[in-house]
């Protein structure tokens, strides 16, 4: 009998553990996924609720209306005052196309699905109409418009964020569409938000990652001298500098200034696949970001066991199999600007109820510490000289130190290269970080850098300090 009793106690302990697991998993699921689950495209509550609730407004950080519900012939319709300019961020609600953007990810707030019983009772009995909550974005419409106009009719994306808080101030994807007139849409590809979901080879902008790895892992990197003959042979592969130009003798600072491919390829080989992919991992490559207000597709860095030397050389200069999203590039830039701390990018600043009272405020969140401050400072200094003396001269702003890096990424086949530019300003106390890609446009320093400059100038003029 005693053995039975002892064993029974053991069984009871196992049951206790199993039931704790049930509780823990339920809490985990709700705590970490609840919001995304509730906003899911498959949540029929949203479709049902939208018939008897007036959708809340979407505003920018200064109260500029980006999506409003207004009455037309006794029916509530959704109106987007700034149409195509904010189309990809704000998104749409459409019976055929479904939902996208903030209209999708914040649907539970916009419909007041998580309003308390009291709030629902007040609305039902005092106002006789159910109103959702208003969502206030981190976006600044004025900066959004600048970025939108600067990119013009070219295909590509612009992301601007405050590196200290992760607040996304502008996010543009082109080609765009008019959310007020979805019925006349011919090509569904325009709906796709390239800033979050477009993956491109980063080209030379990736050199900041290689540089970070070198500064961390190669102790004497500062004193090393490299000789560029305009090309380098890696096995049977010949990797050359832009225009086969021989840069001659240079140190690492000068190599970044002129964006010397052979130097960075040889640094990549010096580091080896382990260290370079370790740094790429620290910069959060190969990770899908699934946040409540946006989903950013995973950037890619090849798995270390599959890297051959010639591939490693290509990866180190952002070609080969490396791909990146514009948002991720903005995050990397912001991390360098913010002493190595990568903030979680955010689109939603706060939620207010239909009477204008703030019911939820979202605060900045440090997402990862990707590099140490001394390394971040060194990279910043080198990026400043890229703009003052190197390939990024067209991003110069008078009276302000700008840090930047150009990228000209081979797009494959006979296509024109993708033009990249990443930058932040002011270099000593950054308040704005920008990533720009212009598809098949040519050289980053010529095509992309001026766009970044316009955005940074406008941000500084608007008082982001």
């Amino acid at each position, binding site marked *: *009998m005693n*053995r*039975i*009793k*002892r*064993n*029974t*106690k053991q*069984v*009871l302990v196992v*049951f*206790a553990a*199993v*039931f704790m*697991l*049930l*509780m823990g*998993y*339920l*809490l985990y*699921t*709700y705590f970490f*996924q*609840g*919001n*995304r*689950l*509730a906003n*899911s495209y*498959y*949540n*029929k*509550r949203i479709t*049902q609720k939208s018939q008897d609730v007036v959708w809340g407004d979407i505003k920018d950080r200064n109260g500029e209306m980006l999506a409003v519900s207004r009455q037309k012939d006794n029916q509530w319709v959704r109106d987007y005052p700034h149409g195509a300019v904010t189309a990809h961020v704000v998104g749409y609600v459409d019976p055929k196309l479904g939902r996208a953007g903030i209209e999708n990810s914040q649907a*539970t707030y916009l419909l007041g*699905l*998580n309003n*308390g*019983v009291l709030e*629902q009772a007040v609305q039902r009995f005092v106002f006789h109409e159910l109103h959702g909550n208003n969502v206030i974005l981190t976006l600044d419409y004025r900066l959004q418009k600048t970025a939108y106009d600067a990119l013009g009719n070219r295909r590509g994306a612009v992301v601007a964020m405050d590196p200290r808080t992760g607040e996304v101030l502008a996010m543009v994807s082109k080609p765009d569409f008019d959310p007020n007139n979805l019925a006349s849409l011919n090509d569904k590809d325009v709906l796709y938000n390239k800033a979050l979901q477009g993956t491109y080879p980063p080209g030379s902008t990736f050199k900041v990652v290689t540089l970070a790895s070198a500064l961390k892992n190669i102790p004497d990197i500062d004193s090393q001298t490299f000789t560029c003959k305009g090309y380098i042979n890696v096995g049977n592969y010949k990797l050359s500098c832009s225009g086969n130009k021989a840069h001659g003798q240079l140190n690492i600072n000068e190599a970044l200034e002129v964006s010397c491919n052979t130097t960075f390829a040889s640094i990549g080989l010096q580091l080896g696949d382990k260290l370079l992919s370790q740094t790429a991992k620290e910069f959060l490559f190969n990770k899908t970001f699934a946040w409540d207000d946006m989903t950013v597709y995973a950037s890619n860095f090849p798995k270390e066991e599959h890297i051959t030397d010639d591939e490693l050389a290509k990866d180190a200069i952002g070609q080969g199999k490396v791909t990146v999203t514009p948002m991720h590039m903005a995050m990397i830039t912001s991390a360098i600007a913010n002493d190595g701390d990568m903030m979680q990018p955010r689109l939603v600043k706060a939620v207010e109820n239909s009477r204008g009272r703030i019911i939820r405020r979202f605060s900045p969140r440090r997402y990862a510490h990707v590099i140490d401050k001394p390394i971040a400072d060194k990279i910043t200094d080198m990026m400043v000289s890229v703009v003052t003396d190197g390939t990024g001269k067209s991003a110069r702003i008078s009276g302000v130190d700008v840090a930047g890096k150009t990228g000209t990424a081979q797009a494959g086949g006979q296509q024109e290269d993708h033009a990249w530019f990443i930058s932040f300003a002011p270099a000593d106390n950054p308040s704005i970080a920008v990533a720009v890609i212009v598809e098949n446009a040519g050289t980053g320093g010529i095509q992309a850098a001026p766009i970044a400059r316009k955005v940074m100038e406008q941000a500084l003029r608007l008082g982001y300090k």
Partner: protein
Amino acid sequence: MTYRVRSRAWDILITIIAFNLAGFILLAFRSSPIDDQALYIAVFTSAVYAISYIIVISFFKQCDEYIMLLIFALSSIGFIMLYRLDAQTAIRQVQWFVLGISVFFTMMILSRYMRGLDRYFHIYAVASVVLLLLPMIIGTIRGGAKNWIEVGGYTVQPSEFVKLLFILATASILKEKRSMKELLPLMVFAAICMVILILENDLGAMAIYFAVFVIMLYVATSNIIYVLGSLILAGAVGYVAYLALGHVRIRVEAWLNPWADATGRGYQIVQSLIAIGSGGWLGSGLGLGQPYIIPAAKTDFIFAAIAEEFGILIAVAIIAMYFILIYRGMKIALSSNDPFNALIAIGAAAMLGFQTFVIIGGVIKLIPLTGVTLPFVSYGGSSMVASFMLVGVIQSTVIQTKPSDGVYPEKITGERYSESY
């Protein structure tokens, strides 16, 4: 001291009745004119709780009244949720509850006179196998599993009732026999039961029977080799089933990534998770959510429906209540001085516990989904009556352990109370 303890239990009963009344009153006010049917059910179920409780504390003093209170609380949440989803279903569920508790009291009365239940292994075994085979012969298919039969206009699920027989059969052998040879008939019996359940596609029931069997085997023999052997066997069978049976593979895949086919194979689990995510910590409020969107919300997925309207905190509390129920059941086993009685109490408590784990785990995507009921909460007559039978067999062992001199074992009057407060 006794007075204080009783009054504490009374407080719990009054709280449950207050909850029950509040829930139904809220539902009554949903429509205008007021739905007085809801009020009648509220009064009736509250009266059933009060009367049952008085019967327990008056005539079956040895019984654990907290187990009864837990059942009342769980069934009340079930009634309210079912009434909110469909009034007619809730009324039938109340009928099943009354039938179940009647069966419970009948068992309690009979257990005063019944002795030597441990001598009928062959009867239990044959009855189990026959009952399990019935659906294959005269059964109807429901929800992909062929485990139902029709009796006088009602559909009955024999595997629910075999639970008790299975426990009795297993305990009859395990109470004294330890060697491999002596255990052989039991092994054969258990294997036959599992095979029938697999053939009937009732994987949830099979998992529960298997787990209970392994638990009882371990408790009786202390032999970890049996347990490991069984687990390895289960793993092998499970893997073969995964490879060979299409519907098993579908379930596992729907579990691993329900979003890959969110409108098809993953539909149930996706909708369940969305419901859990939509409610919030305190729920949308009774009648204010849309739990009717969840497939099988009245039966398998009632936990998701409760999580949506009552909130995550209540859902967590429900899991805790089930654990306390199992804990008190096992505590009765610990107080028993008879191996047979201890084994059936452990078996029945484990049966309820593992069934709860399987269905809640499936609904929250912790484990692959298999359709079983949430005891005392999900709609279903077979399930309600069978759950009461399991509690009945646990409680009746206390009556059987009553010593001849009429003094109840020490834990019943003293230790239990001092430990509770």
